[in-house]
């Protein structure tokens, strides 16, 4: 067929069936948008971190890094620079800090550099060293921070603006002397960093003569040798690694979160697909009739295939493009704020990066799916006789679905559920048959979603069969008529019921898992915080994992002297790179009531484990970490601590305590010995019985004075803060689940409306036969209610099962604490929301259709 003819056919189709095409396009666009938005949001964090790193360290390939924020002796940089093969060794001080001005707080990465950094050739470094800054007190910030702090635009090296800097528990007023823009430093302008000279940074951090990192560039071909030499020189106490190991650790840290989001996104995308499929299914009878008619006229299979393919390609291309636009909007909304708990462990930017491959894969995905779905219309071509392909006993032409097929579909649904169960049950992080855990779980859950759709015909038939005798006996003629109509238009009704099932399925499963995750994290934090009535920490929300240390001897002395205080104990926490993982280290005072968080125990005995850890030499380890290191309860774990590699025995395994890469809990005394420090990252205060926490908090704050940057919170305050953080960390999941509900409501309303609109002519014929509009309307509503009820019940049932499997996978594979609880109430609410909402929407087109002029019925179908 000529391209002209193909276009002619499509234009004719659009003229008459624009509504169906629009619906299908909507379904595809929603699916593509979901996939695209999630992919962009996930890759942006790591890609932008990578760009930031390169802008600073240029062509450095190796780094020597300290194992805690206090760093190491700066003279190591001279030793490293003197090694043969080393081109440049640039010392860096990095501290997490907070800038405050007029109530605006910005967590930053305080970076101290000296002139050696320029030799590395990083694109941003020249701007950082605007001559005036070196050897001068003052800070330079990128435009992102200037904006967030509302710095005046007039600022210059000679007329600085003063801001407050909190670093390591101390508060300073420091001058900001320069703002650099994207024009000078490219994407780094979006990063939250503040640059000072090396020795000013050392002074602010209270770490004179110490640095935290040395970036090393090597002469060509010397990398392996230099790495060996470095390891020999400093490897016992410092970490020698590729300079971008930070980015890999970040990838590691976001992976479990990404996996969870990815899984939900996959479900959402599938739901989008099924909307597409159902939208197309609604148009199927009419498509099949049209195809049969063309075949009677002598159109061959080749003609029909090219016709269908062309229309699918156009629809898919247009809808996918719209989807990309929609997804772009979504991802902008989502990428605004990287989860703040990450910004403490890593320097992060907000620069949004969209790789071309993401763009292409989402677009092509949409296109391919459209073609696959559209090709189902071609199934009739299997029958060499076009009229037989659409003729069916007791059904409208094109609506056939025999009871045998329904039965087989039902059996297939059962088999799929079984298969999915096996796949998910066996998909620990190890995976099944070459698939990763996530892939296996995704496939398993997709299987269940499909099962929900396949189960619809059988359930629908069973419902009709059950209702009919009942309706007859009660002489409910509206119901009898409705059941008849439903039987005659089985495919259309099935498509509608399936849309409802899928919508409810997705909402129930995702909402359920999301709720479980939030509950799990809440319990986790409650355990974690129970040790103190008051908590003293430094920094803001970004320090939620409490890993920022500060000198505390004076503060401890003063607090202990207060009459309301029963005891005050130093708590130690930090991040430690173990292999590619940035692990959360928790040093618990042995006096704490719970050394091991009771609700987060995975394997081991709580009492014994606590006892062993208090005694020393024993630790509790996240299961994800233990698995990755190939160890477990009673096994050993070696940690590269600042005092060298130390080996501990494992008393118990835990969930990941909300930190993706995993955590290690040990005795505070062990921590102090291994980390060679007395600086805690928090002080836990237990009050005397009968003391009001709020009053005690004020007393503690007063005794610390105004020069302190320590934050004093009651248990309740901190618990609330953690709750907010947990929800913020899972914000993308709630966005997905909200989006899904909206999409579901939209899809249902549109599908119901369209289906009823198609019925106007047959309804008008019934009016010719003397049926009253009110009666017809009643019948329509009963029909809709039956369809929706079947769909929603299946969706809720299968959705609850999907929720269970998804939760199991989340616990075992990502290591998140996910206590499963069936949300009867929320499943029912979702059912009612989607079902009743759709029914309500249907009343309007229903009323119009029931009141259609009988003259309409004189038309040919």
């Amino acid at each position, binding site marked *: 067929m000529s391209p002209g003819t193909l276009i002619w056919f499509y234009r004719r189709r659009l003229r008459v069936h624009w509504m169906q095409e629009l619906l299908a396009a909507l379904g595809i666009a929603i699916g593509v948008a979901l996939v695209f938005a999630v992919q962009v949001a996930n890759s942006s964090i790591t890609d932008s971190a990578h760009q930031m790193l390169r802008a600073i360290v240029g062509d450095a390939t190796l780094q020597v890094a300290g194992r805690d924020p206090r760093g190491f002796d700066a003279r190591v940089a001279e030793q490293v620079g003197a090694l043969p093969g080393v081109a440049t060794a640039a010392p860096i001080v990095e501290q997490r800090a907070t800038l405050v001005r007029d109530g605006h707080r910005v967590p930053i990465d305080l970076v101290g550099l000296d002139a050696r950094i320029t030799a590395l050739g990083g694109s941003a470094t020249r701007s950082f060293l605007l001559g005036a800054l070196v050897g001068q007190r003052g800070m330079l910030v990128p435009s992102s921070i200037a904006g967030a702090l509302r710095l005046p635009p007039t600022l210059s090296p000679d007329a600085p603006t003063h801001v407050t800097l909190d670093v390591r528990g101390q508060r300073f007023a420091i001058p900001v002397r320069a703002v650099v823009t994207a024009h000078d430093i490219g994407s780094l302008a979006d990063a939250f960093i503040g640059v000072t000279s090396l020795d000013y940074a050392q002074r602010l951090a209270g770490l004179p003569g110490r640095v935290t990192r040395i970036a090393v560039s090597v002469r060509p071909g010397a990398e392996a040798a230099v790495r060996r030499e470095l390891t020999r020189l400093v490897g016992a106490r410092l970490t020698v690694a590729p300079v971008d190991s930070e980015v890999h650790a970040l990838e590691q840290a976001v992976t479990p979160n990404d996996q969870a989001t990815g899984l939900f996104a996959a479900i959402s995308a599938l739901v989008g697909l099924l909307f597409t499929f159902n939208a197309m299914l609604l148009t199927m009878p009419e498509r099949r009739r049209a195809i049969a008619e*063309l075949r009677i006229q002598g159109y*061959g299979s080749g003609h029909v295939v090219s016709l269908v393919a062309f229309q699918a390609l156009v629809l898919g291309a247009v809808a996918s493009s719209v989807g990309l636009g929609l997804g772009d909007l979504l991802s902008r909304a989502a990428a605004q704020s990287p989860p703040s708990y990450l910004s403490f462990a890593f320097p992060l930017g907000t620069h949004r990066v969209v790789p071309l491959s993401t763009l292409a894969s989402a677009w092509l995905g949409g296109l391919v799916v459209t073609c696959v779905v559209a090709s189902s219309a071609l199934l009739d071509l299997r029958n060499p006789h*076009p009229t037989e392909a659409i003729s069916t006993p007791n059904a409208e032409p094109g609506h056939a679905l025999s009871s045998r097929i329904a039965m087989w579909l039902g059996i297939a649904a059962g088999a799929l559920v079984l298969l999915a169960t096996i796949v998910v049950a066996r998909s620990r992080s190890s995976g099944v048959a070459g698939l990763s855990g996530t892939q296996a779980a995704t496939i398993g859950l997709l299987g269940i979603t499909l099962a929900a759709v396949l189960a619809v015909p059988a359930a629908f038939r069973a419902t009709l069969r059950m209702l009919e005798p009942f309706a007859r006996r009660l002489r409910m003629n509206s119901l009898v008529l409705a059941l008849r109509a439903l039987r005659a238009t089985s495919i259309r009704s099935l498509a509608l019921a399936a849309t409802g099932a899928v919508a409810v399925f997705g909402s129930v499963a995702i909402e359920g898992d999301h709720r479980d995750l939030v509950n799990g994290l809440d319990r986790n934090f409650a355990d974690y915080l129970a040790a103190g009535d008051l908590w003293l920490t430094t920094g803001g929300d970004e320090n939620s994992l409490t890993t920022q240390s500060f000198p505390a001897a004076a503060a401890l002395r003063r607090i202990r002297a207060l009459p309301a205080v029963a005891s005050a104990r130093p708590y130690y926490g930090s991040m430690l790179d173990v292999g590619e993982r940035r692990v959360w280290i928790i040093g618990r005072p042995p006096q704490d009531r719970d050394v091991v968080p009771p609700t987060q125990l995975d394997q081991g005995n709580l009492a014994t484990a606590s006892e062993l850890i208090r005694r020393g030499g024993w630790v509790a380890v996240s299961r994800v970490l233990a698995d990755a290191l190939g160890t477990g309860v009673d096994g050993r774990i070696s940690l590269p601590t600042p005092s060298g590699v130390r080996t501990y025995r494992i008393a118990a395994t835990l969930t990941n305590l909300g930190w993706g890469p995993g955590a290690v809990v040990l005795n505070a005394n062990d921590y102090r010995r291994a980390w060679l420090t007395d600086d805690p990252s928090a002080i836990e205060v237990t009050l005397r019985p009968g003391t009001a926490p709020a009053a005690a908090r004020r007393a503690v704050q007063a005794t610390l004075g105004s020069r302190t940057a320590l934050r004093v919170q009651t248990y309740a305050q901190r618990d609330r803060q953690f709750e907010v953080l947990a929800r913020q960390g899972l914000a993308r999941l709630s966005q997905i689940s909200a989006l899904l509900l909206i999409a579901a409501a939209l899809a249902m309303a549109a599908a119901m409306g369209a289906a009823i609109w198609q019925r106007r002519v047959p309804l008008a014929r019934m009016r010719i036969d003397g049926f009253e509009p009110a009666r017809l309307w009643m019948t329509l509503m009963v029909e809709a209610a039956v369809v929706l009820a079947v769909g929603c019940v299946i969706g809720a049932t299968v959705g609850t099962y999907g929720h269970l499997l998804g939760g199991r996978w989340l616990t075992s594979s990502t290591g998140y604490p996910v206590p499963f609880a069936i949300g009867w109430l929320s499943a029912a609410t979702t059912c009612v929301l989607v079902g009743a909402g759709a029914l309500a929407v249907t009343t309007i087109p229903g009323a119009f259709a029931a009141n259609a002029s009988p003259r309409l019925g004189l038309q040919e179908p």
Partner: protein
Amino acid sequence: MTLRLDDVVKHYRGPSETVRAVDGVTLAVGRGEMVALYGPSGSGKTTLLLIAAGLIAPDAGVVTVEGRDVGSLSRKESARYRREVIGVVLQHSHMMAGVPAIENAALKLLASPVPLLQAKRRARPWLRRLGLDRQGDQLPHQLSGGERQRVAVARALANDPVLLLADEPTGSLDSQRGRSVLELLHRIAHERGMAILLATHDPHAAEIADRAVVLRDGKLHPHGDQGPAAPGGSAPAPAFPGSDPS
């Protein structure tokens, strides 16, 4: 012979009984010949035509058109057969909704790589001959039932078929208009050497057609061979029980 049916059988097996829709029919229609097929409602006329069109496979028997066995055609050949060799007018022809009459008439031509304009140019004279030159640009729902039926006839003729299979093409027409359509078909058959097999209840058809046959209970009888009520070959319609002009 253009069309030849040899001992063709088609039974529909229902849940309670088997309907012998076509039960051993033998019939030949030659070049330029027009044969009218009578028969009461449910006697199997439509079934027979669908078999001749290759749209239904017979249970037994052979259908040949221009010497070729229709049953042995591959799928591709069968489509081409309907597209190029024959024309079909169904009892309830569907038109493409939203497509004007002239384009509906040209529809089957578009299956070959022909520009739309040229296809319309070929279909236009047929519309004119069927008295529809003014309705060419109207959409299906703006046409009367009889007009739609005539568009279907034009569509069947647009490819200059050697065999026309028409199922009650005049069912929705007044007797005047029905007669003139039948006369037109007869003329075309003679002009172009086209064979026509026409299922109908129209009493005029027997006069206009070259030959008339009657199908009853799946078996073929010569026209006028069915008893005292219809003695002659030119006997009009009342002879056929169940014939209903709707």
